[in-house]
Every structure is written in structure tokens, then in C-alpha cells.
């Protein structure tokens, strides 16, 4: 298979304009004849559903939660980037593009990232028009703050709830289309298969999570916006229901999976405190605007932070990276936190934490100013830890947060299955090996509001319309497969619960395929995952019935996919003989312990093709061509 990214020709700044002109159009009267399925209602899926319906398409939208307003985009805290240059500090599309490519350690596709930067301003315009209450200056203009990996202030925000407000904006646009009858909304549905007919995606199989019924839906194109796979690690900042199933089942139907080993470990999360823990909570990166990260200089110093004098503290990020200081990109900040803890300088009960201290900021700006910026985050921290961050430094530690890898898509956001488009975190396209803060919201909304409405039209217009019904044999075959999968899980009646397996899988991946990796560990992980998967299919205990609301069965299906997908992740990590961004193989590092890329041999996207049950997946490479930025060793010093 030859991967063609279909990147338009011409200078980078004109590619998108040119492409929009070259894409064929569907005339307004004909749009009404097309059915489009959108799976997921986060920023990407919500905005895509609304925008496609506004254009006149008939949209069927599915979400796993009880309402489209709850998708996990809602939990994004800090903000959304845009190259508006409202601060007059030298920002531009070019700079946002450059920062994103560099932040991603030169493993993203130039043309996609440039388009993202170009569209970033439109997103803010659109959201403000919808009534998103962004933070404002006294004069009524929009306020900005800084985020990691950038030296300009380009992040727009709504307190610490930016994701919530943007999602509710997209949800309101979606609600308007539901009321208009252009979107038919299917909540509490889980997509369990993509139906492919004559090489084209023509529908999905979904489980009705209330009745347990397996339902079939046909369409002219399918859009997946089903988020990332961070929950493969069991503990992550993702919502409990976030999973890889939709993407993985698409992979099994022929969509290539790109760069699965590129996972983001976010530096500022509340540390793990017990084995019963179900999830980790992020503390927004925006806190690093004012918080200073430090550890005691002495190893094993158990004194409370207030008793450690200034001279005995190591502000290691500020010392090591004077120009970016506490605002280095996430992968760099996380690795450094781990390094300090590995040197036994970690703090707290477990020694797996570093301080994030606001004392200087409070002294400088006053408590009120800090409370206004971060009040809700401080409150959340206090609720979870019963400590007051106004008085004592926060304790933070890295946690799995985002996955840059995802289904491979071309410039049109179409996967290797014709008619199957993938948006947002579920695709791989824009963040390379590390995503910068406040860029996920930007990408989700760019994909949904401003890219898919054009590119899906290009696809539909270029292909002759063929009617299909959900009685087609391909639908029956798919749904029979899904049904037998569920019955099999219920019939095992073993001894260990689904969560028990999931937790063990997570431990394996965190240990061997987490912040830092080595060949020995990765090889061990493959073996451990295979053994665990074998045991799962013999010893899992799933109570209840398939004809009912059965949350254990839902989880079991997701964990079954994680158990296969985890191995793919590890294989991808093994095959990439370099370090870059979030993928850090100890064998490939600079003298200063930074990720060392191998641009001669690994300047490519690794896209994996499913070749059948129990068979090794096939690796395809998309060569990344950099015409506009120079490949350099990232430096934030």
C-alpha cells in the first residue's frame, strides 16, 4: 500500500486555499440527499455535526454518554491557541505553525499544521459569535495567557473551563440543528464496527447501551471523532468511558493506525495516592505561567516544604532551561520530573511528586489576582488532596493525558478506508510526537468547523451516489460479529473482573511503555500483554446480560480491544529506533538527556495495517517532507 497524503502543491501558505478551490462541490439541493454519520460529540464531532447539518446534509450523530454535552473535551482546562496576535507580541500564522511543528519534535505533517494555524483565528471568531464567554480585559477585548512551548501569549481561555465552554458552544450549535431536524441524535450508543461495502465506509454498527440492542445505520460517509486511547494505561486523565474501540475496530476493517506509541504524559497532574484509584486529575498547564517547579536539592529530604529554605531548593526547569523556564513543552517537563524523582528528590508520601509553588506569584500579584486566574483549579486541588495550595505548594506528577497517535488520515482527514473520515484526537495528523498545550481544542474545532465541511463534499462529489440500506449483507455480517463478541465475553464466567485486567494492562504499559522506554522493557511488555490477553479470554468475569444496561459488558469490550491495541503500541515503540517528543527510548538520547531523533531514517509516520487475527501487522511509512522549517535539535534553553 502506498500512502498518499494528498498534500496540495504550491507554497505552504496557499495550499489550503488552493485545495478548497480544487475540491469538488455538492450543490445545496443535492446535499439534502446525503446521509452522514458522525460518531462522537466532543469538539471535533460536535462541531462537525453542526456544521455539516447547517450545510444541508442529513446527519446522524452518536455519543456514548447520555447527552452530547458531556464528551471529554469538556474537561480541557487551560485554553485554546490562536495566532491572532492581539497582544502585539510578534505572533503570526507562521509562528504558531513553527512552534507546533517544533513542539511536535518534527514528526508532524507541515501542510496540516500550517492549515491549523491559518484556521485558528476563525475558531475564536466562531466561538465568540456563539456566545462563548471568553475571559476579557477591562476594555472588553479578549484576554490571553501563555502556554508551554511558546514565547508569545496566544492562548484564549474561559477561566479554567475553556474546554467546557467551547464544547457547550459546539453543543448549542448541534442542539439548534437537532431542533431543526437536520441532526438525528443517538445518545447512549457505542459504535462497535464500521461497515465497509465495496471498499467504502457505508455505515456503523452500534450498541444501544440502554436496551443492549445491536443497531445498524447506513450512510454515504462516516466521520469518527471518538477521541484518544490514553485509557489503555488504565490510569489517565481521560474520562472513564474514553476508549480505543471505535478507532480499533476501524483499524481492523482496513484503516491504518499511525504512530500509536506517541502518547503524551502531562507534567502537572495530582499524584497517584492509592491502588483503588480510578483516574488521575490534571492541573492545567496554565498553572506553569505563575507556579514554579522545584524539588529539594538534597536527596531524601523529608522536611515539609515550608521548612526548606530557598537556598536548598532546586528550581530545576528554570535552571536547566533559562529561556523557557517553567514553560517548556510537556514532554520535557514530564521527563525532568521523572528524572528528579528517579534521583530520589521526589516529595510527598510516595516520593513520586514535585512541588509547583505559587508563593512568589502570590507575593508579587496578591492572592486575589491568583485566585481569579486559577481559583477553580486551586479549589479542585484542595477537594482531592485536602491541602490548600494558597498556603503550601501543590504536589504534582506526570500522568497520561493525550495521544498524538491515531488513525492515519490524508490532508482531507480521510483514512485509508474511502469515506471514513477521522477528526480530532482520534486522528494522528497535527501534533507529531508531542502536542503543545492549548492545541487540542484548536485542532478538534479546526477539523470539525472548518475542514471536514469542505473535504467531505469533495469526496461525495467525486464519487457517484449509490443507495444502500442497513439490510445489506455486510451490515448483517458485521452485526452478527458484534453480537457474538458480546455473548463470548459473557460466557467466560471466570474469576477476575474486567477492571482487574485493565489495571494490570495499565501497569505494564506505564512501566515499560511510559515516559521512558528501553528495548528490554518493551520486549518484556509484548510478552506480558500477550499472556494477559490469553488469560482475559479464559478468566474474565462479566456479570449480567447483553439485553440490558450492562456497564461491565461495555467495559469488557473496551478492555478486550485495549489488550490488543496495547501490543500494537509497544511494537510501534520498538520499531522506532530513535527518541522524539513523547517517545523516549533510553538508547537514543543526547548528552543532556534530551530526545535524540534520527532524521535520516525515522523522519516518517509509521502507519500500521491490520493483517488478521494473531498475525503481525504490516508497517507502512509516510515520509515527512520539511520544506519550510529546518530540522533541528529542539532547544528550550
Amino acid at each position, binding site marked *: 500500500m502506498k500512502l498518499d497524503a494528498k498534500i496540495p502543491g504550491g507554497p505552504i501558505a496557499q495550499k489550503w486555499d488552493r485545495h478548497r478551490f480544487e475540491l469538488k462541490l455538492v450543490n445545496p439541493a443535492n446535499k439534502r440527499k446525503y446521509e452522514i454519520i458522525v460518531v462522537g460529540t466532543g469538539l471535533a464531532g460536535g462541531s462537525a455535526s453542526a456544521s455539516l447539518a447547517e450545510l444541508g446534509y442529513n446527519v446522524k450523530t452518536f455519543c456514548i454518554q*447520555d447527552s452530547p454535552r458531556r464528551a471529554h473535551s469538556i474537561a480541557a482546562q487551560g485554553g485554546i491557541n490562536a495566532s491572532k496576535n492581539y497582544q502585539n507580541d510578534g505572533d503570526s500564522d507562521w509562528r504558531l505553525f513553527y512552534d507546533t511543528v517544533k513542539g511536535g519534535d518534527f514528526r508532524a505533517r507541515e501542510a496540516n499544521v500550517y492549515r491549523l494555524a491559518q484556521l485558528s483565528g476563525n475558531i475564536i471568531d466562531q466561538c465568540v*459569535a456563539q456566545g462563548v464567554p471568553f475571559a476579557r480585559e477591562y476594555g472588553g477585548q479578549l484576554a490571553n495567557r501563555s502556554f508551554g512551548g511558546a514565547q508569545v501569549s496566544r492562548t484564549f481561555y474561559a477561566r479554567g473551563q475553556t474546554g467546557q465552554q467551547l464544547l457547550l458552544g459546539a453543543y448549542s450549535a448541534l442542539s*439548534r440543528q437537532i431542533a431543526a431536524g437536520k441532526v438525528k441524535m443517538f445518545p447512549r450508543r457505542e459504535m462497535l464496527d464500521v461497515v465497509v461495502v465495496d471498499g467504502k465506509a457505508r455505515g456503523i454498527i452500534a450498541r444501544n447501551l440502554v436496551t443492549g440492542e445491536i443497531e445498524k445505520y447506513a450512510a454515504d460517509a462516516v466521520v469518527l471523532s471518538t477521541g484518544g486511547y490514553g485509557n489503555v494505561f488504565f490510569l489517565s486523565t481521560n474520562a*472513564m468511558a474514553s476508549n480505543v474501540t471505535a478507532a480499533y475496530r476501524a483499524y481492523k476493517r482496513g484503516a491504518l493506525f499511525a504512530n500509536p506509541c506517541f502518547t503524551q504524559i502531562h507534567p502537572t497532574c495530582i499524584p497517584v495516592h492509592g491502588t483503588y484509584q480510578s483516574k488521575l486529575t490534571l492541573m492545567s498547564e496554565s498553572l506553569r505561567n505563575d507556579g514554579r517547579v522545584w524539588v529539594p536539592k538534597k536527596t531524601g529530604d523529608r522536611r515539609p516544604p515550608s521548612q526548606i529554605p530557598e537556598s536548598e531548593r532546586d528550581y530545576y526547569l528554570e535552571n536547566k532551561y533559562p529561556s523557557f523556564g517553567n514553560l517548556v513543552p510537556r514532554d520535557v517537563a514530564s521527563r525532568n520530573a521523572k528524572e528528579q524523582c528517579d534521583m530520589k528528590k521526589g516529595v510527598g508520601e510516595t516520593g513520586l511528586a514535585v512541588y509547583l509553588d505559587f508563593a512568589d506569584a502570590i507575593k508579587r500579584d496578591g492572592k486575589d489576582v491568583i485566585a481569579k486566574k486559577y481559583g477553580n483549579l486551586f479549589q479542585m486541588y484542595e477537594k482531592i488532596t485536602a491541602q490548600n495550595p494558597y498556603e503550601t505548594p501543590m504536589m504534582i506528577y506526570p500522568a497520561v493525558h493525550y495521544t498524538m497517535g491515531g488513525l492515519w488520515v490524508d490532508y482531507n482527514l480521510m483514512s485509508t478506508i474511502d469515506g471514513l473520515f477521522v477528526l480530532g484526537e482520534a486522528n494522528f495528523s497535527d501534533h507529531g510526537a508531542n502536542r503543545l498545550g492549548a492545541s487540542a481544542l484548536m485542532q478538534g474545532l479546526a477539523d470539525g468547523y472548518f475542514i471536514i465541511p469542505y473535504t467531505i463534499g469533495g469526496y461525495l462529489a467525486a464519487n457517484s451516489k449509490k443507495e444502500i440500506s442497513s439490510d445489506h449483507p455486510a451490515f448483517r455480517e458485521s452485526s452478527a460479529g458484534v453480537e457474538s463478541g458480546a455473548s463470548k465475553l459473557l460466557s467466560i464466567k471466570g474469576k477476575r473482573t474486567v477492571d482487574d485486567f485493565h489495571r494490570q494492562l495499565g501497569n505494564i504499559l506505564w512501566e515499560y511503555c511510559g515516559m521512558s522506554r528501553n528495548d528490554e522493557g518493551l520486549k518484556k511488555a509484548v510478552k506480558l500483554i500477550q499472556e494477559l490477553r490469553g488469560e482475559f479470554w479464559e478468566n474474565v468475569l462479566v456479570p449480567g446480560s447483553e439485553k440490558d444496561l450492562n456497564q461491565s459488558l461495555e467495559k469488557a469490550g473496551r478492555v478486550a480491544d485495549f489488550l490488543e491495541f496495547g501490543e500494537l503500541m509497544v511494537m510501534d515503540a520498538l520499531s522506532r529506533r530513535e527518541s522524539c517528543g513523547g517517545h523516549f527510548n533510553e538508547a537514543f538520547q543526547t548528552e543532556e538527556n534530551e530526545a535524540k531523533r534520527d532524521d535520516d531514517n525515522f523522519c516518517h509516520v509509521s502507519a500500521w495495517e491490520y493483517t488478521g487475527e494473531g498475525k503481525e501487522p504490516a508497517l507502512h511509512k509516510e515520509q515527512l517532507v520539511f520544506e519550510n522549517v529546518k530540522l533541528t535539535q529542539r532547544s528550550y534553553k
Partner: protein
Amino acid sequence: MTKTLNLTLKVWRQKGPDSRGRLETYNSANISTDMSFLEMIDVVNEQLTVEGKEPIAFDHDCREGICGMCGSVVNGRPHGPEKGTTLCQLHMRHFSDGDTIVIEPWRSKAFKIIKDLVVDRSALDKIIQAGGYVSVNTGGAPDSNAIPVPQDTAEKAMDAAACIGCGACVAACPNASAMLFTGAKISQLALLPQGKPEAANRAIEMVRRMDELGFGNCTNERECEAECPKEISIVNIARMNREFFKAAFLSDVK
């Protein structure tokens, strides 16, 4: 400091919307005070599963207090005893060893019980669909700084917009009224210049829809405000009423 608790739970179990439900008693032992309330239920569910029983069905997702998916009535109070806290952010350190905890679903005519603690809150979506938006299509929006919004207006709008749509206000209200929820959305959009063109229509339509869906009226009990995990103020109900009367008397919207 971390310690452990032994608790007695009385949990509402109901097979389906039309079955009869009842409170079942479970013992919950060795619960760490650092656990969240939902993690405590996870532990009970793991135990039930291993014993061959069906675990308790309950809605939850983000577990960081923002998605609005979780929520049960704990000892008679939506989201439990802590002010301004969703159930997922309620930690067991707020309970004492030996406590008996009663856990029930939201109860309201408009929220049908689906199973155990899971209820159908789609009525809240329907209220939003009646007008909780600005009618602007994608594309063609003016530059975002073209219309300045005074900072305190933006802050007030944000106060209202912080609603997570969990339904605790309805569960708390003796009349099962959804006025805090509806008022919050009407307020957010009525305050901002972008929402003003449709303000009259929005107020009339959303209030009408709310009434049709079987929610009760406001009789100033203020339970909603007291139990709202995001501490949304009933000022928003007052603003909704003003918007509604303004629309009814001064606009052409019927």
C-alpha cells in the same frame, strides 16, 4: 491523614423503568478516606461482581467534576453533603467510620429511572434545543474583538455558563423545577451582545418547553442554589423571569 472506614450502604436498586425498586443494604469495608465517593462504589461493585451479583449501575464519566454525568442523592442531598461539589469530587474523608449512607437516584417526573441510579435526563437537552443557542452558522463570524464585552458582563455570563447540566437543581427542588438550569442558559446568552437579537424568543421558547416537559415551578425554596455543584446563583432565575416578562409584554414574540 489517610485512614479507613467501614460503612453500611443502602442503595436504590431498580431493574428497569417499569420495575419496582427497593433499597438494598451492602457493607463497604476498608474504605480509604482518600477515595472519591465513586471510587468507593467501584470497590463495592468489584466485590458484588466477584460474588456473582450484578454491580450497581451508575452514571459517571470525567470524574473531575465537569462533565455533569454523575450524581445521586446521598443521605437526602444531591451530590452529597459537601457544598459546591459533584459526587465524583466528594471524598470519603467527609464521612465517619460506622456511617450508614443512603444512595438514591435523582427523583423527578421529568427524569425517568433507567436502572438503579441511572436516570434519563434528556429533558434538559430538549430545553436547550428550544433556544439555548445563538443562531449563527459556521463561517462568516466577525473578528472576535469587533464587539467588546465589558469584563464584568463576561464574568457574569461565565458564572451562568458554568452550569454542568447534571440535574442536581431539579433533584433538590421540592417542585422538581428546572428553573436554575434554564435560567443559567437564558442569562448567559441574554447578558452577551451576541445573544441579544434572539433574547425574547429564547426566553419564551425555553420556558414553554420546560413547562411542557413536566418540570415544576419555582417557589423560592432556594434548594437548587444550595445544592448546585457549581454554585450557580438564583439571580439567574430572577434574570430569566425578567427576560420572560420583557419578552411577553414588550416583544412581538408569542
